[in-house]
């Protein structure tokens, strides 16, 4: 089985492009100052100030090894290093055809292919990297930032096979820590034993089961109570889309408007999945649910989904973000920002959570489905921070995949007509365009727009006239 190997970790954000690593490598490997001998290659782009060394990643399934006709490349099962054996190499260079990351290349001076071998466990490049952009570490430690944090959720999965919600609960709780009160209104989250079963609690933080309607208001009271007692307790809600967008909306909207210090996480599986897959207001257009069946007259849900994150943005929340477990680093960064923001005001995170049972797709495809949703711009990942008053795409998709590639993965969309697919595309484009406009121009802040020139003074006059009860000039002239 695979094990944790040592790896050369590259941190491009720390790299300054000095090139000491190349020189050190050439020195150790060929006793030369000619960096043609270096197995590590510096990428420099001064246009966007990008620096980063390219080096063999010692792949788990290396294409170079598989395409070697002479057995001159092998993956060492002990160290994980892809070893090159000079005595067998015929220099056909077919290995270089397979590697997408320039991990193995032809050295025109030595007339051989060459690749990184970790210097047998003491990489010379790492020793000379002053900014710390190169690190030699176990690959399992790459993501260990979160691992010292205690897992506050019971082991195992009490939900459906392949459910993403369990993963999400585990990561959120781990990040916010034990000083938390958790509210889980009816839905899949308490269904996963968060609030307990047979007198036992499923998580290691105090949790309770509010009504669908009053989650945010109960949490607001708890937060205020603890604050009065002088304790800083994180008040966390893990609610479904029904508990946020439909039944729970009035208390959610109220709490957000009052700026209650709550971290409100919504797990959007686009319907009432735990009660038998009924439609909710976030169910997308054309989607099959048990209450929007597919038949001769009805072809899934006739109305488009409510895009709750934008509605929450208009509540002047401290922090609003959309997130997906398919992008765990992005997810953790957002939970951290939301956690900090919830100490100042209302923080809202909208998590995309495909439902293997209710959406009808294979249980092992959940992450892949999420990835496709993001890559097709169906579910753009973005965040809004009030402190900087900026909406930012955290994982912009430059070259989106067709929406069909996402829809075709999911059973609840299988019946979609061409027209419905086109409608869904139009909805996705509309959303993206709105978000992009806000990202580029900001929320309609007149002062800011005046300085940037996007708002003309005449328009301001017109607007001022409307706001003050008068009639805009243009209308006046039309009236004449």
């Amino acid at each position: 089985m695979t094990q944790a190997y040592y790896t050369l970790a590259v941190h491009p954000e720390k790299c300054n492009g000095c090139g000491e690593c190349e020189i050190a490598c050439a020195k150790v490997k060929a006793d030369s100052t000619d960096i043609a001998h270096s197995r590590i290659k510096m990428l420099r782009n001064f246009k966007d100030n990008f620096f980063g060394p390219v080096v063999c990643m010692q792949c788990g399934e290396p294409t170079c090894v598989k395409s070697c006709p002479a057995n001159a490349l092998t993956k060492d099962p002990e160290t994980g290093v892809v070893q090159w054996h000079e005595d067998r190499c015929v220099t056909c260079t077919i290995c270089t055809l397979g590697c997408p990351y320039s991990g193995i290349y032809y050295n025109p001076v030595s007339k051989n292919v060459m690749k990184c071998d970790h210097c047998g466990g003491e990489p010379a490049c790492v020793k000379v990297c002053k900014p710390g952009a190169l690190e030699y570490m176990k690959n399992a430690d790459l993501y260990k930032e979160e691992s010292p944090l205690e897992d506050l959720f019971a082991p195992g999965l009490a939900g459906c096979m392949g459910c993403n919600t369990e993963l999400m609960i585990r990561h959120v709780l781990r990040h916010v820590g034990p000083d938390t009160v958790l509210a889980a209104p009816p839905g899949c989250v308490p269904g996963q034993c968060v609030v307990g079963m047979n007198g036992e609690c499923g998580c290691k933080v105090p949790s309770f089961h509010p009504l669908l309607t009053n989650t945010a208001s109960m949490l607001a009271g708890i937060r205020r109570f603890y604050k009065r007692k002088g304790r800083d307790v994180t008040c966390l809600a893990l609610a479904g889309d029904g508990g946020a967008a439909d039944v729970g909306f009035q208390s959610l909207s109220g709490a957000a408007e009052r700026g209650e210090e709550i971290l409100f996480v919504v797990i959007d599986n686009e319907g009432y999945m735990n009660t038998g897959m009924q439609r909710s207001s976030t169910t997308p257009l054309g989607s099959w649910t048990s209450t929007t069946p597919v038949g001769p007259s009805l072809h899934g849900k006739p109305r488009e989904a409510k895009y709750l994150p934008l509605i929450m943005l208009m509540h002047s929340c401290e922090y609003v973000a959309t997130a997906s477990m398919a992008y765990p680093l992005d997810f953790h960064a957002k939970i951290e920002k939301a956690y900090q923001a919830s100490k100042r005001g209302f923080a809202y995170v909208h998590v995309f959570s495909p439902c293997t049972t209710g959406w009808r797709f294979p249980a092992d495809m959940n992450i892949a489905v999420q990835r496709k949703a993001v890559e097709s711009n169906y579910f753009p990942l973005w965040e809004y921070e009030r402190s900087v008053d900026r909406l930012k795409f955290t994982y912009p998709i430059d070259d989106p995949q067709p929406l069909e590639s996402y829809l075709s993965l999911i059973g609840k969309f299988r019946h979609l007509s061409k027209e419905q697919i086109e409608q869904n595309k139009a909805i996705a484009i509309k959303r993206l365009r709105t978000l992009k406009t806000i990202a580029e121009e900001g929320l309609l802040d007149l002062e800011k727009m005046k300085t940037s020139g996007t708002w003309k003074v005449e328009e301001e006059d017109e607007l001022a006239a409307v706001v003050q009860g008068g009639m805009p000039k243009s209308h006046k002239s039309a009236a004449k």
Partner: protein
Amino acid sequence: METKYLIIGSSHAGLSAADEIRIEDPDGSLTMVSMEDCLPYSPTVLPYIVSGKVAAEKIYLRDDQYFKNKNITFLKGKKVVKVDTQASKVTLDDGNVIGYEKVLIATGSEPTLPPIPGLKESKYHVLRTMKDAQEINKAAEQAKSAVILGTGLVGMHAAEGLAEKGLKVDVIRGRRPAVLPNYFDKASMQMIHKVFLDHGIGCNLDNQVASVEPGAGEKAKIVLKNGNAIDADMLVVGTGVRSRMDFFTNVTPQMEEGILVDDMMRSSVENVWAAGDVAQALDFFSGKKELNAILPDAFEQGKIAGASMAGNPEALAAVEGLCKEEGFCYNGGVSMNTFNFYGNRSFAVGQSLIEDDKDYVIDVHADVDSCFYQKFVFKGNYLVGAIGINSSLDPGVIMNIIRRKVNMKDKVGDFINHPLNVSRRLMWDSWRGVAKV
């Protein structure tokens, strides 16, 4: 004997299928049949055995321990003479019969002979098996001169190998008046041709063989169409190959130049898969089924065939988009190869042969004196082909930019000006998991 999985052929496609089957199904009985009486090896390495670059005993792709560890029955030196697809039985040349549940045809290809009068009657060598290579080496010990028929990879590799052994070598073209016509365009081909001429290889691309007259032992007299004749101590033929697939009885799978396969390497007959040089699969550019007999395709096809044989292809087929993404479906073969000659290196990928076509933008940098050539073929914002001779580019990076259809948008100009840096950066950016800021 009976076996659940039967793999006929033991080179890249067969081995990669065996590896993949063992990932999905560690216990199902698996038998691999090889017609040669040795451990698995790659035909790609044979020219280097002729040139003496590497010793034959070093290059075997697997050892006996591998078959023991993976619980694979390896039958070597047994040729399959009959595949009965209805009875699901295979007959070997020693008369033994193997019953299978699922069979993979990974038999590769065998050399073809051009219709030249006298050739069949003469003593000639081909280069497709280890035995061929050893026979060429043995003949070369005695010979002072050699004639090579064919200017493909096998012919040119053999020419250099034999010339380096001190033989006087003449290369005579097959049908097309070019060197490596499958990969290199006219300008780059002329550069390669010149290097061979400079190294004393006779390689006149105007001439063709009219007839061959057998001589004593290995000797032969090669008569050219212009009337000249060359006396050679040995003759090597490398004018092409055809798929090895003449063993089907009862129901024969659909075949053209190779066995026609779908995107999971299934033939038209149930429980019969094909991969590698014998399989005619989807082409990346044309969308038609074409033969693309190259090593990287062989192991990829083998992997897909193995996954499809041992896994649950129907479940994957239901989610077609993912099937492609996760590498369980064949995305189409891209022509690619590397060719190294006299200390020079070259590669060609994708639609590298396109010249003078208004649908494509072509960028060429060449310097004949230093034997440098770099060509890019763009279709819109997409790179579709490239050639490099002594270019510092990474062939794998270029190949993946083509295969992954990386949209370069406004970076096409940048790419042409700084191809090494920009190509590496494009791959860096496309690496999943790097957060974009």
